């Protein structure tokens, strides 16, 4: 973990510290985390659920969950925003599945771009812009069908069975596509 004086790492460190205080039961710290991250996490919930009311409920789930599970966060192992982003993704997908609205087909690439960016500049929380760009570049390098499968699982909430069905291939075929996609992604992202 690099420690620097730039605003991004200062924001990250403040966030890590606040999550630590949430774990200790400090409610004011939860509010601090909420102020710093809710616009980002709400965007994730909206992107996955495509429904304001559902996204609001999912967002609430995320912070109530965080209140209970902040102790599980380990700053040495995960960046706070990725950890929170995945929590938001998981809660939103839980709701998507509960509502029977899994999107096993192609998930629109720019699904969230029709939304006005009314939030504060939360981009300073994404301290690894270059890394994110790299991840997107790596995703783009996948074959179309692999990329669609990865996106419909992670964003659309589809399971192996559902992705295989949507793409009209046997389960075993889908599993090998995804595993190859994951291996390629890992190598690409880690700069192999």
């Amino acid at each position, binding site marked *: 973990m690099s420690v620097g004086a730039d605003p991004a790492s200062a924001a990250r460190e403040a966030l890590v510290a606040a999550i630590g205080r949430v774990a200790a039961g400090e409610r004011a710290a939860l*509010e601090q985390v*909420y102020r710093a991250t809710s616009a980002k996490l709400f965007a*994730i919930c909206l992107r996955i659920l495509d429904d304001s009311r559902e996204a609001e409920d999912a967002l609430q789930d995320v912070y*109530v969950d965080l209140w209970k599970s902040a102790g599980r966060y380990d700053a040495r192992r995960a960046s706070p925003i990725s950890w929170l*982003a995945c929590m938001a993704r998981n809660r939103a997908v839980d709701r998507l599945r509960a509502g029977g609205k899994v999107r096993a087909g192609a998930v629109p690439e720019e699904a969230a771009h029709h939304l006005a960016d009314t939030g504060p500049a939360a981009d300073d929380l*994404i301290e690894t812009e270059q890394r994110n760009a790299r991840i997107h570049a790596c995703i783009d390098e996948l074959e179309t069908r692999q990329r669609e499968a990865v996106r419909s699982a992670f964003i659309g909430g589809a*399971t192996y069975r559902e992705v295989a069905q949507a793409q009209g291939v046997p389960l075993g075929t889908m599993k090998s596509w995804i595993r190859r996609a994951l291996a390629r992604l890992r190598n690409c992202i880690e700069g192999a």
Partner: protein
Amino acid sequence: MTQSDPLPEYDLLAGEFVLGLLEGDDLLRVRGLLARDPDFAERVLQWEERLAPLVADAPAREPPAAIWPRIEAAIAPSRDPEDGAGAELVTLRRRLARWRLTAGFSAALAASLALLLVAGPLWRQASDAPPPRESPLLAASIPIADTPLRLALTYVPERDQLSVSAAGLASDGVHDHELWVVDGEGGLHSLGVVAPGEEARFAVDPALAPALHEGARLVLTREPLGGHSEGEEAGPVVAEGHFTAI
């Protein structure tokens, strides 16, 4: 990082888990790995780091102002000066509030949980042995009659925590499903009402922990909305299974 990985499959399994592709027995196995294998948990975090940008690139969007007060209400009160029975009641009430708000459940479920929590002290009196330390993780995958669905349960003894995944289980609007553990005498102890389609974590009353062991029988019953009423017989059994140590 994982270049000289001797077990590439293992790392890909972590990736499949983070993508949310797994279900049924595969998901149970992975949850087991996650709970007990720090190396696997580390790989899950690495995959979260790799995949998070896929969802985190949406432009930030300020949520409505009403959300924070709802969260604040859900986590309050964080502290109560009373102790003993008063504090216990506050804890129960708080748990109830969290439940309701966490999962956006109905008032009916809240009421059934109130019953469940009120029933808690009775189990405490009935039990003697404390839960054994370092118990194995328990899992059950319960097929639901006449459907391809399975109810996935994982119990982490050290945390007295039971996670229940009822993905795909739909509500018919007039019934709820209640989960029970069957004790040695055939008595039923409610573990809670299972919310359709949700993944939930149940805090298990420590007094009930001794009943949760390998081979322990679990049944799912169909109940009126909100779960069975106190003093009533449990409803018809729609599914059953056993805990397996994993």
